[in-house]
């Protein structure tokens, strides 16, 4: 896998197509695992999509007492293994980004797995393939670098001047799973 999930929150138009698509993904059991939420409902109707970062060293897996969260060889952090998860919800509190969801009925955690059956074959995950405004994209590493450069230029045009100490505040969210050797 050499692709990257690229999120631009500002592009989100709040259509929630990604959530509908997520429900359709194999093994997702008709429940969405991603989020579309309001930045601040009292200020504006701006929404943002949110997915799992697929951390290299995931806090969720580290706080799981049952060792139920596995990472695939490609680096995708999977939902809890059903036979191990004891339903303590530690992962939902440990995750710095509030990603894992919990199914109280079936007593297990489930979370964004980047549609593992798709991304494993380098096919875009459901959310990225349906997003009409390109807020969620599944792109090559190089394309991501290009987009980020352009983004920095846009910031300059807008009058934001990134400086040595805070330039990282000016690049959009990107994350993903890719093998270092190929990038």
């Amino acid at each position, binding site marked *: 896998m050499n692709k990257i999930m690229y999120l631009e929150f500002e592009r989100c138009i709040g259509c929630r197509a990604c959530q509908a698509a997520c429900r359709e993904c194999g093994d997702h059991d008709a429940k969405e695992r991603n989020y579309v939420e309001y930045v601040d409902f009292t200020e504006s109707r701006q929404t943002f999509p949110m997915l799992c970062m697929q951390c290299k060293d995931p806090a969720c897996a580290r706080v799981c007492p049952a*060792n139920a969260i596995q990472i695939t060889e490609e680096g995708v952090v999977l939902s809890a293994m059903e036979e191990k998860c004891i339903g303590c919800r530690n992962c939902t*509190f440990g995750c710095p980004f509030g990603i894992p969801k919990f199914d109280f009925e079936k007593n*297990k955690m489930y979370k964004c797995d980047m549609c593992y059956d798709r991304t494993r074959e380098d096919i875009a995950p459901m959310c990225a393939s349906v997003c009409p405004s390109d807020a969620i994209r599944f792109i090559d590493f190089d394309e991501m670098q290009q987009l980020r450069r352009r983004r920095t230029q846009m910031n300059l045009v807008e009058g934001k001047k990134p400086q040595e100490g805070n330039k990282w505040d000016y690049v959009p969210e990107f994350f993903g799973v890719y093998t270092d050797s190929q990038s």
Partner: protein
Amino acid sequence: MFKLEKSFYSKTSMYSFFTILILFLSMWVSTAQFLHIDMALLGYMIGSAVFAIGLVIRMSFWLFRTATNKIATRSVKNMFAKERLKRNAKSLGITLIDNILLQKFIFKRGLYRGIQHIMISWGCIISFAFTFGLTFGWFRFDLVDPETYQMVAFNIPLISMAANGWIAEIFYNMLNIGAVMVLIGVSMAMYRRFKDYDVKVTQRFEFDLLPLYILLAVTVTGLALTVSYKFLDGWMHPYISLIHQITVIIMLMYFPFGKLFHVPIRPLATAVPMSYQETLMVDTKTCKSCAQPYSNDDQIADVQAILKAQSFDLQLADGTYLSDYCPSCRRRMRALKQMNMEAPQGNPYGPVNTNNGIHISGFGKKRSDEYFGIDEDIKKDLKEEKDHEPISR
């Protein structure tokens, strides 16, 4: 305790030693100083001993994990707390009956899966109990007179029964009943694994399929034994019995290291109602930002301690940790940070200031300094870096 520990190679080896010691003593007692030991079961005996050691090693490694250790210590502490006794009994009872005996939560995942799992698990439990009981001599059946069998557990005579009564019949067929249950369950599981595309997404051969094949081999050879001596006059009996013994030993060796290991860790589920719910099924800790209840203090304290022990630095500038916020606020914080929209001054949890200071209303006003300059502390950092230029340059 510490001294004792020092005389062993490691904690794990100490636990293994004592497990074997206890097993040995229990055998010594229940077989009346090895008088009634069944030497035909020697292979199983050795296999079971290795199984016990493997299990102890895996359990110890699992309990040494920071996360597991935290929740286990808290639960043990809570278990013996006086004021929690009633609650603990209730949690234990509910978990035991709902989750282990009836496995309700699996039935909620689907009726098919429920039946499949309850068949495999209870079949296995029956067979394991019987096999271990007989190999370690924990119980045996003595012929008191030609008509009566007596069940002897730990060398204490218990019930006696007619040699061809229905109770005796059940005991003779206990392993067969278990085997048939497992066979049904395993066939259902295999059918599901082959047919259902959803489970194939994360299925791995060595983890999800191999245990099924092993269980299948054990049950089929075990049932073949019965068929052989009941209907075929013991045709091929010694060979089948040898093959069966080998499959059982393979399963015992595999047990602690593969999927089946979820069985011994399952009881930890009691820790959830026991330690992580101040009031059962009700959240009592509120989010620092939106004040909605989302968890409880004990659990968040544990999560923070676990993360800290593993060097996760998730503390914010104001001293709070990310886990002090509800998941939804955490997501929002991440988005705000990313879009550079966090409220710059004042109350960090207050409404967001969407006036970005770039698009200014009117000519008289100036853009705020902060959009051109660098923060004070960054300025300081940069200057410091100048003072100490890296040697390599």
